[in-house]
Structures are given as C-alpha cells and as structure tokens.
C-alpha cells in the first residue's frame, strides 16, 4: 500500500521555566492509505503532541527541534502557510479529546459548521447548498433532529452529541486522514461504544485512514490494523494488532497490556510502578529503563527501533543482540 503520512525522527520540545521539556524523541511513524493505526501509551507520553505536530497546531511554547513529516510528498514542517492551510482544510481532520471544551460556547452549532464548510474544499454555491450539506453531514454522524441541534449552543448538548458534532466538523476536512485523539475518553461508557462504531463506519464508508489514540485497549483492538506503543515520547514497539496482543515483546507493552483489568479469570492486574521520567532530564538511554524489571547495563544506551520481521519492530536491548 501507498504511504500517506510519514513521520521521521521527530523531536518536539516545550519551553518551560525548568528548562526544555524533551517530549518527542526520534519518533518515526507511518500511516498508509486506508490504514487504521492505533497509538497507545499512558497519559502524558506525547501522543497528543505527535498528532498536533502533524497539523502544526502545537502551542506557541513548543519547538520542533528535529525531524520531518511527509504528507503525500509535502514536507509539513517546511511547508508554507498556504500549503498548511490547504492540508488543514482539505486533507486531515482532527477529533479532540474533550468535546466539552472543543466547541466554542459562544456560537451556535450552526455557525461553527457553516464556517467550517465555507472554508473547506467543498464547492458551495448557495446558502441552500450549505444548508443541505450540513443536514447531510449531521445525518452522517447520526444526529437526527438537526433543526434543534443547529440552533443549539454547544453547552446545551450532551457529551455524545457534542462529540458527534466534532466528528462532523472533522469530516468536513478529512478526505484522506482522520486524527482521533482519545475521542471517547471523556464520554460515558455507554456512549463510547456508539461513537467508536460510528467512527469505524465512517472510516470504512469514506475510505479514510485513521490514527486512533486511546486508552481503551479493548476498543482499539477491534478497530485498528496496526498499533504503535509509545512510552515517554519514544515509540517502543510497533506491530499488527494481533501480534501486539498475542506476543508483545517490549517489557512496557507487556506491562501495559497486563494493566488492563479483565472480567474473566482469577488473574490480577499488575499495574505499573513508578511514573514517567522527567522530560527536562530524561534518561539518556531507554526511557523505560527506570521502571523496567528486565533492565541491564545496555539500557543506558538508546536502543533503536529494530525490525524483527515484516510487521513487528521493537526498541529494546532484549531483542536482536548485537545487531544494532
């Protein structure tokens, strides 16, 4: 399959009063056309930063220190304003974590959808066109009663409805790629499933690629083809979904998977001890070194992401011996 998005050795840092936070460290990442990719890892490991750097919407205190991002042969980091705006308006849509705060509370849903459509690739000739397009869009995200919803302010809608509006907004953009940043985390459990099903349906129907960031490993498992595991700003393992769940290699992946509570069996979750390293002075080698139970003296040197076979790579000294 043809590659749609390719991130190469991306390093992103944040300025803070304690010094630079070296968040993303040599992240490489690829999404192919029509591929569904999952990105998992605990909170604060840089998943959102990665997604935001793809659209170049990082906060002003951030620095893209090193690296390249290719989207359909356009180098996003070096791209000029027009190219970036074109990509934001035509190719990539993003869904945010918290639908409560992602919509502007001062404007009706109608206004926000209108503006989004007005500045999109869609060819809008008249007000009627716009109206029809919006109603079609709302139907697509399974929002009936479009009259009422269009006239509502975001705070008058439920969390699930707001996230559907956010998805509709993202759909006005994503002709190629959808970036979904924990789209279900802030929703009720009963709604999470619905939203995810909706996303899957839309992605399949429109033939989009998607990057799904989530904590809900069970849901990710059913959704995506390929998984990237991230720890403290580094990609530690990547493989097809089946491989990750059946034979995880990296000690962090193993721990992460075992931390998920299960309904069956007498098995008890181990959980992860400790917390993420300090980003100002991260350990020079493997960033998981301090929490890893299988660490050895090698781990003070940074392991590269090693390709074990066609669709399984891992960055750990336990595998591949002296090869790297």
């Amino acid at each position: 399959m043809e590659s749609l998005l390719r991130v190469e050795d991306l390093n992103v840092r944040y300025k803070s009063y304690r010094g630079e936070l070296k968040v993303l460290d040599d992240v490489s990442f690829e999404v192919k056309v029509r591929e569904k990719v999952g990105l998992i890892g605990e909170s604060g490991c840089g998943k959102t930063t990665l997604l935001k750097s793809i659209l170049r919407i990082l906060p002003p205190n951030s620095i893209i220190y090193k690296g390249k991002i290719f989207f359909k042969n356009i180098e996003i980091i070096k791209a000029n304003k027009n190219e970036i705006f074109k990509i934001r308006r035509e190719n990539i849509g993003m869904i945010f974590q918290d639908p409560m705060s992602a919509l502007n509370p001062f404007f009706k849903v109608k206004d926000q959808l209108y503006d989004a459509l007005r500045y999109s690739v869609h060819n809008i000739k008249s007000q009627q066109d716009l109206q029809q397009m919006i109603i079609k869009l709302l139907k697509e995200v399974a929002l009936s009663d479009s009259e009422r919803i269009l006239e509502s302010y975001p705070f008058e809608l439920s969390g699930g409805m707001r996230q559907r509006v956010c998805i509709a907004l993202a759909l006005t953009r994503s002709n190629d790629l959808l970036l979904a940043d924990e789209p279900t985390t802030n929703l009720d459990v009963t709604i999470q499933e619905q939203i995810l099903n909706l996303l899957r349906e839309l992605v399949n129907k429109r033939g989009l690629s998607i990057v799904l960031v989530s904590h809900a490993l069970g849901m990710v498992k059913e959704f995506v083809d390929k998984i990237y595991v991230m720890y403290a700003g580094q990609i530690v393992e990547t493989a097809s979904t089946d491989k990750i769940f059946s034979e995880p290699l990296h000690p962090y992946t193993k721990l992460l998977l075992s931390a998920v509570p299960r309904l069956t069996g007498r098995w008890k979750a181990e959980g992860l001890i400790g917390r993420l390293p300090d980003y100002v002075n991260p350990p020079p080698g493997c960033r998981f070194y301090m929490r890893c139970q299988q660490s050895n003296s090698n781990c003070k040197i940074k392991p590269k992401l090693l390709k074990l076979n066609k669709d399984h790579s891992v960055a750990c000294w336990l595998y591949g011996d002296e090869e790297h």
Partner: protein
Amino acid sequence: MKSLIISNETIKFLLKRGGSIIFTLIGLSILIFILARILPGDPARMAAGWTAPDWVIEEMRRKLGLDQPLHIQYIRWLSDVLKGDLGFSIYTKRSVTVDVLQYLPKTLELIFVAELFSITGGILLGILAGAFPYRLPDNVVRVMSYIAISMPAFVWAIILQLMFARIIPLFPAGGQLSSHIVPPPRITGSIFIDSIISGRFDALIDCLWHTILPALSLSFGSMMQNARILRMGMTDIKGKDYMVLSDALGLPLRLKIYKYQFRPASIPAITAMGMSIGADLGNAFLVENVYNWPGFSRYGVTAMLNKDLNAIVAVVLVVGIVYAIANFIVDLIILSLDPRIRRMSRSV
C-alpha cells in the same frame, strides 16, 4: 439584537440584576444618610453658620427635623428624595435638585466622550496586543499601559494642559465654551444636545474642542486598563481547546481572531469597561477641577470643601445612580453577547 429574544432565563437575570441595583441604592442611601448624621460635625451648626448663637442652632435643628429619631429622619428624607427634593444647598443658596439638573449633563457629556475614547482605543489596542502576544505591538501596548495606568488622572490633566494648552496652545486650557460664543438655549442642559437641537454648530464645535483635553486626561488610564484586560482575555482564549480546533480546521486568521477569539475575550473586557466608567466618574472630580469644567464633579468638590451636607449627599447618591445605570447597561451588553447567561437555567 435578534439574540435578545426574551427567554425565561433572560427575564430572571434582568429581574435579579434590577432588584440588586435597587437594593444597593437603598443601602447606599442609608449609608450616606448615616454618615451625614453620625459622623462628627453638626449639620445644624453648619447650616446656621459657625458664629450663630446656641438658640439659633436649636431653632435650625427643629427646622431641619434633626430633633427627631434617626429612622424618622431617614424616612422623611427618603420620601423627599423620591419626590425629587434633595434639600437646600447652603453654598449655592438654591435647591440641590436645580443644581444637579444644571451640572450633571455637563459631566455626563464629558464622561461620554472620555468613554468613547477609552472603549474604542481599548478595544483596538487590546485586539492588537492580544492577537500577537509577546510581539512588538504587544510590548509597546504593555509598556504604554503601565505608564498610563500608573499616572493618576489629575497628573495626566496637568501634563496635557501644560503641553497642549500652555506650551503649544492647540487646545483651550479650561472651561466648556469660549467666551465669545453665546451658549445655546438651555433645553436639556447638555451643550452638545442643546446646540444640535438649536442648530448651533459653532457652539457644538467649540464645545467639542474644549472637551478633548479633559476627556483624554480622563480616558488614558481606563483606555489602557481596558486594553490590558482585553489582551489578557485574548491570550487566555487563545489557549482554549476550541481555538486549537479552529486552528486545526484551518479557519482564516481574521475569522479566528475577530469572531471566535474576540467574542469570548470581550466578556471580561466589557465588565472592566463598566468598572472603568466608575473610575472615570471618580477621576472627573479631579480633572474637572484642573480644567475648570463647569460640571457636576466640580460642583461636588466645592460642596465638599464647604461642608454643604445636602449637596454632598446628593452628589454621592447621583453618582451611585449613574454608576448603577452604567453597570446595568454593561449587564445588558454581556447578556446579549454571552449565550450561557441567556440560555442556561443556572445563570453564571
């Protein structure tokens, strides 16, 4: 004003605000009444004059009703006030109500022009600084605002008068009309309105000319304060998720700043503008003195220096009413801008 379609929440909000204003004004009237009666200084003695013999003072006390218990005095006074009788001024030897009607419009027109400056200037500078934080315009506005806010209005008044009226005589140094201009016929008491009604554009222009320096002195501080609050609001909003979303959608910069960023940021700024009207009302007491403006505040200062009790009480009450009206207007504007107050049952 389509957005002002009256909903239940709107009515509730307005009733609540209106109620609290009336409540506060009643409280204010009690407060100043008590201040005027309880604090040292005998109003009867002041009314009769310092050299008057004791029996004259007693007579005066009875005449003024000061021998009655305090709550009776208050009710009497309040009913007089509600009838529009604010008492007799011992300094101007006229009814205070007449004085108020003569002087108040002149101060209101000064404040009006000052607010025009401070609101338009504040919005422009605030947007400029807030849209591009930590860049050149922001830094210039920031330094300017520190200086403008730190310099008291009466210092501004003196310096502007010195610079632009005395050293470089561009503007008149004081008064509201030049001596060679015949004042327009008195209709409302405001020279602006009267000269427009009677078609006296020479008087209008002359009056505007006289208004510029005092209005500028009044408005510098509040203008920069408004700009600062708006700038703070703009940068606060800039970090919000919904602004990141509008970035992600690739909305044009103009639309983003003037619509999605400005509207939410304007709420605290408009509240601040209400406060700045208060500050300007206070500062008018100093600026009118420097520019010899024949307004209400100068009347107030004269009354205060002469211990003209009825006039002092009236001045405080009228300023309180003007301030309350200004704040009510501010509330209405916020109501029309912020849907959360309009639509949500639990009002903010």
